[in-house]
Structures are given as C-alpha cells and as structure tokens.
C-alpha cells in the first residue's frame, strides 16, 4: 500500500499524479475463503479490515453486488455520536466513536471525521426530562454529554431561533461535543484500501444468490453471480437486503426494510457550525465541508426496496427545518435520495450468531448505522474470528426478541403524555 502523505502528494503533483495506483485490487474470486462477508458497505469492509488487522485472518472475501459503499454508507447524513441511553447501546456506539477519533490515521485515509458537536434540541418539558436522563446516564458511562440552556444553545449554534415565538420553542439542548460527522464514501474506501493491502479480496459486482449448507445444516459457502465460493464462516452485513440474504439459509428475521430519504441544499459559505437534531419536530441538519446543508428526513411508512420515498416525507422534514431555522426558506434543495434501512422491533441492531452454524449476521441498524461503522466492524470481526460475540455485542443477540430483553432507545425517548 502506497502511503498517503503530504510529501507523497507533493511528489506526485510534480509528475501529474501518474504514480498513484489502484486503491484496492479487482481480484477474481478464489474457490474458497476462511471468511466470506456478504455486503461491501462500511460495516462489511470494516469487518474485513479488523479480521485482517486484529485477528490476522486475511483469507477473506467481501462480496458486493454493486459497488462498495453504494448502499446506506453512501446515502446517509453521516451523523456520528455515542450519547445513547442504555448501557448496551452506549458501550457499542462509544466503542465506535473512540475508533472514529483515530480512524484517519489508522487507515492512512482522511475520513474527515469532524467533531463539530451534535446538539439535540429540547422543545417541551418531556424532552428536557428525557435529555437530562441521557446526559446523566452518559456521564456515568464515561461519555461526554452536557445540558445547555437555550442561550447556550444559541451561542453554540447561532442560526437557532430562541425567541420563544416558535410553535415549539427551544427550551435547551443536550450537546455531545465529541460527536460530529465524517465523509461517508471515504470510510468505505479507506477500509477497502486497508483491507485490500492486507490481502482481503474485495469483489464488486458479485451478488450472492444462495447459501449452501451441508448435511448438518451448517453454512459452507455462497452461490454468486460469479460462481460458487466456499466459506469457513459467513458474515451477512447486507443492511436493507438482510432478510433476502438470510432467507437463502431459511432464517426468518425480525426485520423490515423501509425507504429513508435525505437531501442536501445548494452549497453556501459556512453558516451552520454543528449538527442539530430535533426529535420533537423530526429534523436533523448539518453543513458538509462542501457547504451543502445536509438534512435527514424520516422513513416512509411502508416497506420498500425502491430507494425512493414520497414527496410528503421531504416536505414534512423541511417544514420542521424551516420552523426552527426560518431563515432557510430561500435556500434550495439540490439533491434528494433514498436508502433502504433494515429496522428491528426495538430499533437496535442484531450482531451475532444465527440458528445456522457458521452463519453470522450484523444487521438492523435502522436509520443510524453509519456512526457505528468502525465499532460494528470491530466487534463483528471478533465474533467471526472467535465464533463468539465480543462483550460489547453480546447483548445484541437475535435471541433477545424471545426473552424480551429488548434495547429500545426510541421507546425510552419518545412517549408523549
């Protein structure tokens, strides 16, 4: 792997950048691998990277039916935070956040992790109570999160209107300063480059069509559009398509796949310094390095694989954005798009074993998987390497839906009275 650095960049600039080679190879699939990862998004690529770097398992293939990072990795609003309420989620997302903090250096790839702070606005007394519950819980878990008065919110993010004339006035907010955003594509590419350099085969345009099992029922390989590939262990990291892939091994999942939309504005000079989320009015917004306002919308109400949602979802989101930031009505929507998010009944992920031996799954990240990418890959690599979960993902089993030990952050946060 050719190291990226200012000096390598400068020396290449003197010769027209002719010396840069491929960031990852385009290998033919081998007949078999120790581990086959189904899904070349951020989570799958990170899994491969950590299999190679942490566990020394390099005979690994990542199979991607399209182009890597082309699913939710490249379609999300890139919010990264770890201020989750429950111990289990907090540990998982904080694990990820810590990895984010050194990720550019670790990968030798600038993923532009920007700790601009995520500010969650409270608009009613219930929000205040709920956010303080988060703040206190986070602090005891060693996660930074602080309560800001509305004046402090305004000081931190000047575009916020705290005049009190809003339909839902801002009463204050919870701020995680270490939270922020990153460059989504770079995360996929950086992990791909790092994994490839250590021998992992990243195979694009290779769709899995079946999972082969032996007489005992154990998974032994995958049928793909590029032929059969044997596998010691299989890790399915296919986000919205997980149900479809798992059905190939006759495993039914507690998942539903919904369209999730997002949009950006035209680029403007810096105007928005952080990430603001507002659960009460359903809006979240930040500004990208390129200058675009990045705005997340909600999911549609029906399951779909179309990567396209309804206009009313977009308009409702912008209603909320323009209610909190009325100065933005003259901004223009430049681009909108949709992803397919796989949602579990408690909206927390499933990371671990399945009823099928040698088949493992990492899914159910819903609308918030990007932030977990490094942590998810790290613990899933552990799970695949040891055939046992890492302590951090141990609670995120498929079995929790049977026992009732759910990890329901949304239910904890959002019940009106």
């Amino acid at each position, binding site marked *: 792997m050719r190291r990226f650095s200012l000096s390598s960049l400068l020396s290449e600039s003197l010769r027209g950048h002719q010396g840069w080679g491929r960031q990852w190879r385009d290998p033919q699939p081998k007949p078999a691998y120790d581990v086959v990862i189904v899904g070349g998004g951020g989570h799958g690529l990170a899994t491969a990277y950590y299999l190679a770097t942490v566990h020394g398992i390099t005979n690994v293939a990542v199979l991607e039916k399209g182009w890597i990072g082309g699913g939710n990795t490249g379609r999300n609003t890139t919010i990264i935070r770890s201020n989750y309420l429950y111990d289990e989620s907090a540990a998982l997302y904080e694990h990820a956040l810590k990895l984010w903090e050194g990720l550019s250096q670790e990968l030798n790839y600038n993923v532009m992790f920007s700790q601009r702070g995520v500010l969650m606005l409270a608009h009613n007394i219930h929000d205040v109570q709920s956010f303080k519950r988060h703040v206190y819980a986070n602090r005891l878990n060693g996660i930074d999160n602080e309560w800001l008065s509305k004046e402090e919110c305004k000081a931190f993010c000047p575009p916020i209107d705290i005049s009190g004339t809003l339909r839902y006035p801002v009463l204050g907010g919870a701020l995680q300063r270490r939270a922020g955003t990153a460059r989504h594509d770079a995360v996929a590419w950086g992990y791909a480059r790092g994994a490839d350099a250590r021998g992992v085969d990243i195979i694009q345009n290779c769709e899995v069509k079946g999972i082969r099992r032996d007489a005992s029922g154990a998974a032994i390989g995958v049928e793909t559009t590029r032929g059969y590939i044997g596998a010691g262990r299989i890790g399915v990291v296919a986000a919205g398509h997980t149900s479809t892939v798992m059905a190939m091994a006759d495993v039914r999942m507690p998942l539903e796949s919904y369209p999730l939309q997002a949009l950006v504005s035209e680029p403007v000079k810096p105007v928005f310094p952080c990430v603001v989320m507002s659960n009460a009015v359903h809006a979240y917004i930040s500004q990208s390095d390129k200058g675009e306002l990045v705005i997340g919308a909600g999911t549609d109400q029906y399951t779909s694989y179309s990567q396209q949602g309804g*206009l009313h979802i977009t308009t409702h989101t912008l209603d909320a954005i323009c209610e909190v930031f009325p100065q933005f009505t003259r901004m223009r929507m430049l681009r909108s798009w949709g992803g397919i998010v796989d949602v579990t009944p408690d909206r927390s992920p499933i990371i671990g074993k399945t009823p099928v031996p040698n088949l493992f799954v990492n899914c159910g990240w819903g609308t918030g998987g990007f932030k977990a990418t490094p942590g998810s890959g790290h613990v899933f690599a552990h799970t695949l390497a040891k055939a046992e979960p890492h302590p951090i993902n141990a609670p995120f089993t498929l079995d929790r839906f049977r026992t009732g030990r759910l990890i329901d952050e949304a239910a904890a946060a959002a019940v009106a009275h």
Partner: protein
Amino acid sequence: MLLIACPHCGNRPETEFRCGGQAHIARPTDPAALDDAAWSEHLFVRANPRGVHAERWCHVHGCGRWFNALRDTVSDRFIETYPAGAEPSRSPDLQTRA
C-alpha cells in the same frame, strides 16, 4: 406519495392511510399455549420480501376501515387491495425474491 385504492372509497392519496405491516398474521387464539419462541415469532418476525408483499392498510383519514393489499416492494406498484378478512385473488409470493 402512493395512490391507494381503498376498497370502499376508491383511489386516495397515501397521506390518508396508515400502513399496518404484514397482513394475514392472526392473533393466536390461545397465546398462553405458545412457547416463548413461538410468541416472539408472532410478535416480531415479519416477511420482508423483495417482491410481492401482503400488507395491511387503514384508511384512517377516510372511511376508517382496515383492509389488505398486495404490493410489489421493488416497484411499489399495488397489485390489488381487498377487505380485511378476505383472501387475495392471487396468493402472495411470500418467498423472498432474490
């Protein structure tokens, strides 16, 4: 915004409706007889097909009636809608489509 044919009111915009997820999951007549795994299956496991899906809709801001629909989750096209309790004229391909 989808256009949905309510069996009672005809074509109406999606915003008048609420989607209720997978159809034809009857509540067990004796839940106590189910073991934890079976009850969990009833509560949580859903067909999530890439293809034709039988699902429930309620015309909540219209006639208020629940009904069922077959919809292709790839094209979002409705194949048919039919009253709650009825069966579709064709059986939904509940196998996931690769």
